[in-house]
């Protein structure tokens, strides 16, 4: 374990959080957006530099920060960069940048820029922390932009479905982490919530395996795994595709699985992971099937998110490094492609003001740029050759088919159906007769930059994928070693 010379991660998160606070006080939405764009662009560059340095020649597996802090028990470093998270930092900030740059002005609220940056700060904290309490706080803060404002609480008791589900998953996560901490504390672990101490304690068998199901349910809800998936299409319908894209792209649920569940429950997880993978497979198939019946753009998007995001978990259950690498690469490719598709859908809505398929059509002639981005980004999410999605699906299908042939065939079928769903959404929106009264223009300069950036990254990495695949393969080998330490693996 190496020590960073300065607490770079803490500084970066603090700068992001501070910027979010400042932006929250800027009343002019365009000015706030400009500030947020600059900050997220700088974060992307910073993340890229960090990743390039970490994965560079002679790199180490983990770099911790120089200071130590005690939240419970002995002091430990709070944040670290490692092979799993370093690539996710520039990825998440790039997603935020694209959304900030490309979202239509009509969908911007006064707090949009501030909440997006706040969410990014929380995501970075969750991705880099070594402490379960920080992770629980970051997980919760990442949801704050979704909480309903007080003035709008209606007479009915239940909150929106996505809020209810996400709150439920947060409670489960906090309970699971607290139980882990208590068990570790009772066993005399010096820092009971630190991921530096917990693996050692876990190998002594002091963490009861009964906590794992609680954690897994939290993860399953957050990931939208069947039968906890209903909030995703509902959120897409109620809050729009961009809010969902921002929440979904970092795949915090899958991250907690890899970062916490694997090292803290090493004895049980290897047996449970195949089961989780099969449940995720159900979500993949279910999302693809129900997506066939979606009647509007937002629900079609929601089902695509359910299906393609669950594929990441299917990849993680593989026994082979190439399958896990496929899952981890898909994490990035699906995140980028679905963000782009969300932007394109938001663009359509902002222009036409409708989203039911029966009231859409004919936009291709009016907005050729938007239509081209829609179809390429949408198909990139389901593995269009020439994009990073193709590489990810290729690796994933190879890995899964070699590990579990039946599941491999099922995911190929589901991806085929998703491809059909994307093209159906595209053709229903952009082809056919133009509804009367629709006079729209093509994408604006700002939107064009965001969509082009996503296209360039997806296609560029699709043509030269080794740079991403290598970083994911390093993380995958690390994970595979944790899952199956015996020599024959």
């Amino acid at each position, binding site marked *: 374990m190496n020590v960073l010379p300065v607490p770079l991660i803490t500084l970066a998160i603090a700068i992001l959080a501070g910027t979010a606070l400042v932006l929250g006080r800027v009343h002019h939405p365009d000015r706030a957006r400009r500030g947020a764009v600059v900050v997220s662009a700088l974060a992307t560059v910073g993340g890229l530099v960090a990743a390039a340095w970490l994965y560079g020649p002679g790199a180490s597996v983990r770099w911790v920060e120089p200071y130590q802090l005690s939240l419970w028990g002995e002091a430990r470093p709070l944040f670290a960069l490692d092979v799993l998270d370093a690539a996710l930092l520039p990825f998440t900030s790039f997603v935020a940048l694209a959304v900030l740059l490309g979202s239509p002005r009509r969908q911007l609220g006064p707090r949009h820029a501030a909440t997006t940056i706040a969410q990014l700060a929380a995501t970075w904290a969750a991705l880099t922390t070594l402490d379960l309490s920080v992770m629980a706080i970051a997980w919760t803060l990442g949801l704050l932009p979704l909480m309903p404002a007080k003035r709008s609480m209606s007479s009915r008791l239940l909150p929106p479905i996505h809020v209810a589900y996400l709150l439920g998953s947060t409670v489960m996560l906090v309970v699971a982490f607290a139980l882990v901490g208590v068990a570790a504390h009772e066993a005399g672990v010096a820092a009971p919530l630190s991921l530096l101490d917990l693996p050692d304690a876990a190998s002594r068998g002091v963490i009861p395996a009964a906590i794992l199901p609680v954690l897994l349910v939290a993860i399953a809800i957050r990931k939208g795994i069947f039968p906890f998936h209903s909030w995703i299409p509902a959120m897409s319908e109620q809050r729009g595709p961009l809010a969902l894209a921002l929440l979904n792209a970092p795949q915090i649920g899958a991250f907690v699985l890899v970062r916490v569940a694997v090292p803290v429950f090493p004895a049980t997880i290897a047996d449970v992971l195949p089961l989780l993978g099969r449940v995720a497979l159900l979500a993949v198939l279910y999302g693809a*099937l129900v997506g066939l019946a979606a009647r509007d753009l937002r629900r079609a998007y929601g089902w695509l998110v359910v299906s393609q995001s669950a594929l990441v978990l299917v990849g993680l259950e593989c026994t082979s490094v190439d399958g896990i690498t496929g899952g981890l690469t898909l994490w990035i490719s699906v995140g980028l492609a679905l963000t782009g598709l969300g932007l394109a859908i938001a663009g359509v809505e902002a222009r036409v003001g409708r989203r039911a398929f029966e009231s859409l059509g004919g936009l291709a002639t009016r907005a050729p740029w938007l239509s081209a981005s829609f179809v390429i980004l949408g198909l990139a999410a389901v593995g269009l*050759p020439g994009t990073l999605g193709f590489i990810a699906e290729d690796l994933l299908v190879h890995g899964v088919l070699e590990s579990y042939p039946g599941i491999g065939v099922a995911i190929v079928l589901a991806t085929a159906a998703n491809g059909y769903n994307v093209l159906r959404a595209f053709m229903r929106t952009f082809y056919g007769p133009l509804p009367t009264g629709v006079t729209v223009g093509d994408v604006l300069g700002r939107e064009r930059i965001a969509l082009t950036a996503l296209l360039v990254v997806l296609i560029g990495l699709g043509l030269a994928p080794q740079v991403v695949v290598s970083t994911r393969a390093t993380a995958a080998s690390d994970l595979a070693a944790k899952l199956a330490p015996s020599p024959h693996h």
Partner: protein
Amino acid sequence: MSPTSILSMLASAILLVPILALLALAGVLLMGRRPSERTVAALTGISLTLALGLAVASLVGMAIHGVDQVVVHLGRWFRVGDYEFDLTLLLDRLSLPFVLLTCALTGLVGRFSASYLHRDEGFYRFYLLLLLFAVAMLLLVMAGGIDLLFAGWELVGITSALLIAFFNRRRAPVLRGLRAFAIYRLCDVGLLVAAVLIHHYAHSSEFEVAFEHGHWPGGLAHVPAEAATSVALLLVLASMGKSAQVPFSGWLPRAMEGPTPSSAIFYGGLSIHAGAYLLLRTSPVLDRAPIAAAVLVAVGLVTAVHATFVGRVQVDAKNQLAYAAMAQVGLVLAEIGLGLRMLALVHITGHAVLRTLQFLRAPSLLHEQHQIHAAAGGHVSPTGLFYERLLPVRLRRWLYAGALGHGGLDEGLERFAAGPLIRVARLLERLEQGWGARFVPSPRDDRDQSSVATAPLSIRSQEAKR
């Protein structure tokens, strides 16, 4: 420079030239520029003629130096542990005829379309898709491994669906494009799974390694006999989709909604033969799987009979041609199943050229009829002589009705496969929306006013239906 390296450079250039033309056209259009129609047609024509010249030069070079196949290792695309994805191109006795056909026919169709689609609002889109198709088809036939072949295969399918829906102001072409894409996607499952299985058994996706010992049509598949049947059946499934074989043939006559030049190049010339190419390329697997070969023969013959039968009652020139093409491809597949590979290759070449010509002439059919009548000095009446006269009248009528209904194939697929699936999906979606509606809708704050304004649309329509 050795002859091998010169041939390798020629082979790479065949693929590179259309890619550069495609990038140039896409780049110019992305920048918002509109070059003249003549420039676009010239760019397409020149690039494909150049590619054709390079292909001819490769052929001559290979003949002079007595080289049977040229394998070009372009490098490694990516690698994870033992799993490698190499970029390899392959020119041999099988791929060269297809490369020549692709460059020649696409180039000719490009020239034809310059007049045919003159001032059409989709002119630029058509040429963009035509160049993309040329690249995809060249990738498909020049791929040195089955993974790369799959990439080309997928792009051909997407281009095909987008071109069927080309005249997109009407609903019908759009629905038909979607239908073709659905069948493609379903059957592509076979190719992807087969590709992985070949890699699994042969430890490589490269044809050179997976089917070693001798060049095409020889070769020995490194797939154990017990697995060969399933791999071969998956490949047959894949080819049935692209080559419109029974029972997946319903999309082909519907694909005639696309512009005539694209019908010619896709369903007369090239795309329709992609399935046959796949089976020829992977024929060493078929050699080890007699059951799959028998299935292929049966599928091909049944399709040939079905297409002839249904094609007899078509009243539209393009539909007649579509069924005629389907019948010939059925025969080609039967030949492949019987092991007559060279015959199949010759058959494909002749059929592709003839059918493309027929498709391109289809729009001028009426004009030509008038010319014939004028030359004959009056109306030429049909003779009234046809083979069906030999059958009893009642049977003839019954067959006629059956042929008009496409032999009940589409209806059967819809009733027993697509219909139930869609009904289940709709039921689940209704239940999901009902569950979501039990919670309150999203808060109405400034951020998502636009979404709230439109949010209840689908819910309302659902409730109205209930």
